[in-house]
C-alpha cells in the first residue's frame, strides 16, 4: 500500500507536535464549537467558510511550492499526493457525513479535540463514529462504489 510506514522516533515526535499544533488550532479557531458549525449551515456568519477557504488556499500554495521546488520529506523521499478516487460513496457518504456534522457540530478532528478538552459528551460522538465505521465495514461489500 504505502511505501514507507515506519518512522524514526524524531519523525514520530514531529508528527505528535503537528497534531498538538492542529488540536490547539481547532480550539482557538472555534471550529470545534457546535454553534460555529450551526451558524455556518445557517449562513449566519463567514467564520467557518473563511477558515476552510483560507486553509485550502494556503494548502494549495504550499503544494505548489513543494512540487515546484521538488521538496523531499524528512525521510528524503519525494512528496507525492495520493489522489482520493471518485466513486458513488463520495456523493452518498459525503452527504451522510454532512448530516452528522450538522447534528454533532463536529467533524472527526474536533471530536478528538473536544475529548482532549474534557468535553465528555464528545465521547458519545466518538462511540457513534466508531459504530458508523463498523457499520460501513460490514455493509461495504453491498454498497455502491
Amino acid at each position, binding site marked *: 500500500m504505502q511505501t514507507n510506514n515506519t518512522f524514526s522516533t524524531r519523525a514520530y515526535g514531529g508528527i505528535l507536535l503537528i497534531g498538538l499544533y492542529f488540536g490547539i488550532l481547532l480550539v482557538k479557531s472555534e471550529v470545534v464549537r457546535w454553534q460555529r458549525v450551526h451558524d455556518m449551515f445557517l449562513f449566519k456568519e463567514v467564520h467557518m467558510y473563511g477558515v476552510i477557504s483560507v486553509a485550502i488556499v494556503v494548502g*494549495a500554495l504550499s503544494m505548489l511550492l513543494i512540487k515546484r521546488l521538488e521538496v523531499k520529506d524528512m525521510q528524503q523521499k519525494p512528496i507525492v499526493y495520493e489522489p482520493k478516487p471518485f466513486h458513488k460513496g463520495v456523493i452518498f457518504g459525503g452527504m451522510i457525513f454532512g448530516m452528522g456534522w450538522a447534528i454533532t457540530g463536529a467533524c472527526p478532528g474536533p471530536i478528538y479535540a473536544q475529548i482532549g478538552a474534557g468535553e465528555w459528551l464528545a465521547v458519545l460522538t466518538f462511540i457513534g463514529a466508531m459504530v458508523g465505521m463498523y457499520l460501513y465495514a460490514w455493509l461495504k461489500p453491498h454498497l455502491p462504489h
Partner: protein
Amino acid sequence: MVSLLLQPWPWWLSGILIGLTVPFLYLVAGKGFGISTSLRHIGAACTPNAPFEYLNKHNWRGGTWNLIFIGGIVLGGFIATRFLSAETVEFLPASYYSAGGALRLLAGGVLVGFGTRYAGGCTSGHAITGISNLNWPSLVATIFFFVGGLLVTWGIGSLLF
C-alpha cells in the same frame, strides 16, 4: 498581546495556520493530512479478527503515524482549553446535556463515522488536502458535505435543535 492570544483567533489567522498543517505533515512524514482514517485504524487495532475485510485485512500499523497525530490533537485540545483560553469554551449548546442530546450525539456520530468512511475522507482529507491538490472528487465530496448539512439544518433543524 497575551490577552489577544487567549481570545478566539480570527478566521483568517486560523485558516492560514490550519492550512500549514498540510505541508508540515508532508515535510515531516510524507503523509497527506487526514483524520477520519483513524477510525478504521482504531477498529482494526482493537478488533483484528472482526469478520469484515475492511478491518481484518487492514494493516493498521501502517497508520501508526496517524494515531500519534490524533494523540497530538487530543493533547492540543487539552492545552488550548486549559492554558490558552481566557473563558470556558462552550463546545455544545446547553440543550445537548440531556438524554435527547446524548442520543443526537450518538446518532450523529454514527452518520459521521459511516459517512466519512464511505466518502473516503472528511473535512481534512477531502476538503482541505484534496482540494489543495486539485483533486476533483474531493471537491464533489465537499459539496455533498454541505448538501447533507444544509438538508438537516434547514429541513429538520427546527425539530432537532
